[in-house]
């Protein structure tokens, strides 16, 4: 219970900071909307559902990267990371809280982005919404973990996309498979199950090894 309280307090701190400063979320919203407009001109004419599904996932992935890159940068800049590490709570609570906060930003961006996608390109089905929800968990869990790693390096957030994209390949495969749906993909459920498995597997690894990322 104490663990959950710690996670709640840390996540609330990030959400409160965002509410007051409004740094990340407006940037993510603008970015995803601008990306859709660019995509319209990248694929002139009437793009197929297969093509726009891919574009949707590129937009989501890069928007997430925008948010993930910001997750740990203020902690380093304001030197609060040492305080967090020294706080009398389990270190994995820092990862979980940051993941929850980033997830909240990403979901907020997608609440606007998915209707926009439906308006500009094709309608969004329930399997796509499920895929977005499951992929978000994986993206935020693994991405936050790698964000903490990247911020400890000299290259800072420059390194995050390099570390993250190869690890995001399974998410992209699962998410695109579920979004494309019939007739190209006969059983989107398999892709959703794959995404859930990925989330579970990497959540356990991140939770268990976060200690080594922040502590020396």
């Amino acid at each position, binding site marked *: 219970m104490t663990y959950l309280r710690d996670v709640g307090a840390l996540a609330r701190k990030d959400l409160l900071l965002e509410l007051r400063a409004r740094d990340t979320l407006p940037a993510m919203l603008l970015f995803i909307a601008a990306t859709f407009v660019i995509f319209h001109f990248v694929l002139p004419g009437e793009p197929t559902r297969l093509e726009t599904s891919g574009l949707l996932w590129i937009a989501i992935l890069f928007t997430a990267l925008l948010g993930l890159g910001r997750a740990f940068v203020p902690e380093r800049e304001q030197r609060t990371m040492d305080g967090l590490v020294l706080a009398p709570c389990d270190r994995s609570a820092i990862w979980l809280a940051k993941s929850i906060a980033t997830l909240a930003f990403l979901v907020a961006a997608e609440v606007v982005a998915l209707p926009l996608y439906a308006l500009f390109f094709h309608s969004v089905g329930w399997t796509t919404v499920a895929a977005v929800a499951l992929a978000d968990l994986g993206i935020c869990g693994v991405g936050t973990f790698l964000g903490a*790693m990247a911020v400890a390096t000299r290259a800072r957030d420059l*390194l995050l996309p390099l*570390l993250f994209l190869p690890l995001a390949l399974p998410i992209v*495969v699962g998410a695109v498979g579920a979004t494309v749906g019939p007739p190209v*993909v006969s059983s989107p459920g398999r892709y959703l199950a794959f995404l859930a498995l*990925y989330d579970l597997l990497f959540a356990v*690894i991140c939770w268990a090894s976060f200690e*080594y990322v922040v502590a020396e």
Partner: protein
Amino acid sequence: MSSPSSPAAATIPAVGRTSRIPPPALAVASLVLVTTALAFVFFVAPDDANQGFSQRIFYFHVSIAFTAYACFIAGAWQALRHLWKRDPRADLASYVCIHQGLIFGTLVLLTGSIWARISWGHWWLWSEDELVLFLVLYLFYCAYFMLRFSVDPGPQRANLSAVYALFGVVLIPVSFAAIRLAKTFVHPEVFHLDGPAFGGWILVTYCITQVALLVLAYTLYRLEIGGKRLDLRLRRLREALA
């Protein structure tokens, strides 16, 4: 450079029995095994019924691929030893294993591309699971080097590298499953290779090539880690003298 009698080795405890084999003996063993493997591949193994002479690259391509996997897994194992047992030598060992893995990984991409060009007329085929998987792993491990070299040497660099190396071994099966899944929408038609039955001289040649490449990889690993340790000792001595 790291022979048991030298004073350098006296302060660093041996990891296991295999590390007592001197590098020159390993080098000779590699030379003999690789020469035997080449002789078997070119003179003993029969021509493939469909692809003819060019199929012989299979012996190298597959053996190199398994050797690269072995290097990545060994790297992750050393990373685990670093995180778990805090073995001071495990970090360098993990790095050298992954470095060797990346070298063999490059060879997998090259030999795979050559084979694909000769057999199917394309330098790159997305329907080849092994090739796509290696490309993903290649990018992943290139990022490992970016990560490692943008952190100053010390406990934090060792920790970050170790954790990322562990992610790699989890990524291998997960990516493989993902690439298999992706075929249904990227490539509806899976390429079927109707090769000959895997047995007889083909199996013998393959086994010899596999053993030769594993020994070669181990020899290279020993040489590189020997050099790296010597370099580290030299730097420490210089710091002590300064």
